[in-house]
């Protein structure tokens, strides 16, 4: 998750405080979290009226090697 400014990252992190999210801060504007938490992150921000830009394809719901469903 990359923010325009450090202040905006702080603001966004406050909105995510209630989540038990494993993430690591990288620099002053970004955090890195597991791709499997993307949906939770997105949903939580949406519930607070923040609709982030999403780049790339979210992690597949199938085994990436075999294509089988869980």
């Amino acid at each position, binding site marked *: 998750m990359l923010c*325009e400014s450090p202040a905006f990252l702080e603001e966004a992190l406050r909105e995510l405080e209630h989540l038990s999210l494993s993430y690591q801060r990288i620099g002053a504007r970004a955090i890195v979290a597991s791709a499997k938490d993307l949906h939770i992150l997105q949903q939580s921000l949406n519930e607070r009226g923040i609709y982030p830009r999403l780049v790339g394809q979210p992690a597949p719901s*199938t085994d990436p090697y075999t294509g089988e469903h869980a």
Partner: protein
Amino acid sequence: MNKETLEEHTAQDPAREQNQDLLERGLHAHQGEASRVRATSLESLELDLIHLSCALERYPLKLNKSGTPNRRSLARFCQGIVMPSQQLTTDGLDLQNPEEIDYLAFLLALLLELGILHCDEQNLTARAHHEPAQRHFTHHEERRNRTLSAAVRNLKHWSEVISAQLSGEGSPSEHQVEAQLSLTQTNGAPLIGARGYLLSVLKRAAPAEWTCQDDLIELCLQLDRDYLPRVLNRTSSPLEPAQYVALFIEHMLFWLGIVELAQDKDDHTKLVRLTPRGQRWLETHDAPALPEGAHAPCLIIQPNLEIMVFLDAAPIPVLFKLYKLAERATLADRVATFKLGAESVQRGYSLGLDAAKAIAFFDKHSHTPLDQTLRFQLEDWERVWQRLTLFADGLLLRHQDPDAFDIILGHLQHEWREVPELQFIRLSHGSAFVTSPTLEPLTRTIERYPNLIIDHLGYIPPCLHFNDLNDPLSFEVNPLHCDFVTSRELEQVAAWERERSKPFTRQYSLDIERIKAKWPEDPLGAALTWLRPRATGPEGGMPPATELTLRALLRRPQPRAQLAHDILVIHFNDAHSAELFGAIPAAQEIIVDRLGEHSFGVLREDEHLLQELLTQLNIPFS
């Protein structure tokens, strides 16, 4: 009896010729004057479907344990839904009114059948702006008619039989209401064949003019006299076939906007006729053609960011797109008002639009060119929206030396300059993020720059689960929990056991030959270094059995064990006494090995020497 058609029924019927005659004679247009016309449209139903799915996308509908929607939660979704042929009320549908609950249940069942809703144990949610909603609502009328027609025929979670009970005289029981609202019970499934049959009759009879409803019902009953009674018997329905057909017309077909209903002005006979869209929906032989040409502008965008929409002129794909960008505020007299706001527009942007697309959309469908202020506003909201970006995939590159990292990044940017989707975003002195849709460039990077640390959380996640006590080298992996380096190197040190694997739990076994080939100089040391941060056993960390097995298979000289059958153990009850005993030269002559702090091993043949020594030392023994 799925997908039964009238043709199949008439072909099986010995009175086929008589049926053909019935159809050819057709239904006579009613001669009297129609009054109290009740009309709705498929477009109104589609608007309700879009409105409901958008609401469900934003807020999940809580489900009870039985799979029925929680009433308190359901109340939120009644807002803005219009009962067919009625005006929108302030509160929307009334959950105290069984017929209005029935209509809401019908909409939910349709959305479920269209694949737009997702139901888990606790919640019902919609993917209103993703597939398959996107696939349905953005297409032209002909294609929407087909998908909706298939969904209506196959409705499993809504039943006309229960609908009759809800609209009957007297208050329906709570059980009946729950059964109709249930999203897990398939009360409508036994009626799939009956719906197909009735729609086939309607298609062939094609009553485009006002027709006596009883005549239409009679035709449906006559064409295959046994079929409907048989279906209704199977459902244990108290309904007579004629009642079932009447309800099918008055509820399902009317709500869908396929038919209009009226009464004769004089004798109050019930009348019915197909709407033009209904004729196209049924694909009757003389259905009116689709209106040609592009739709006229249907939006009036006001400076206060309100958008007025003339629903009769607005195609469903336009309304669907408008729902992405704006909130519907009011609906009255076929005019809806939407409100553009920072939140709603940014939500639209997060669903795949941007300022340029939004401006182009409004320019195309607005009565007047878009105001400069609004253009600026849409672009400004895009700027605000871009303040926070989530990258769903990509690579985090880190290096301890910022100067060396600069050089590496320069090389990589030059190497991948022709791949536009690869962007390099510098996050700090020693880290950068690369938006990469493929893993191939990363593979090359790993090989070329061994000092570059590539991971997703800054540490290697323990993802190799050694749980098989009978096979210390066997382990399970969930590929989604692995960092990239582990995923890539796994195949170099272990063999994938496909037959024992399941999706998301792949079974591997450490392969000694592969390990030796990968690390020929120090296979044991390198393998343990690789495994220790990644392995997790039942007690956590690297299981001792796995490490010992690897030592046995890889270490030179190999660890060996001797099974001693002729050793006597002498055990002292305190460590200091044992220490003193071990220091006596006579004892050292007979001790084979020290076994911990308290014990020694002595050859059985030296037992008499040991006893003599203990006697001399005045140490009692047993």
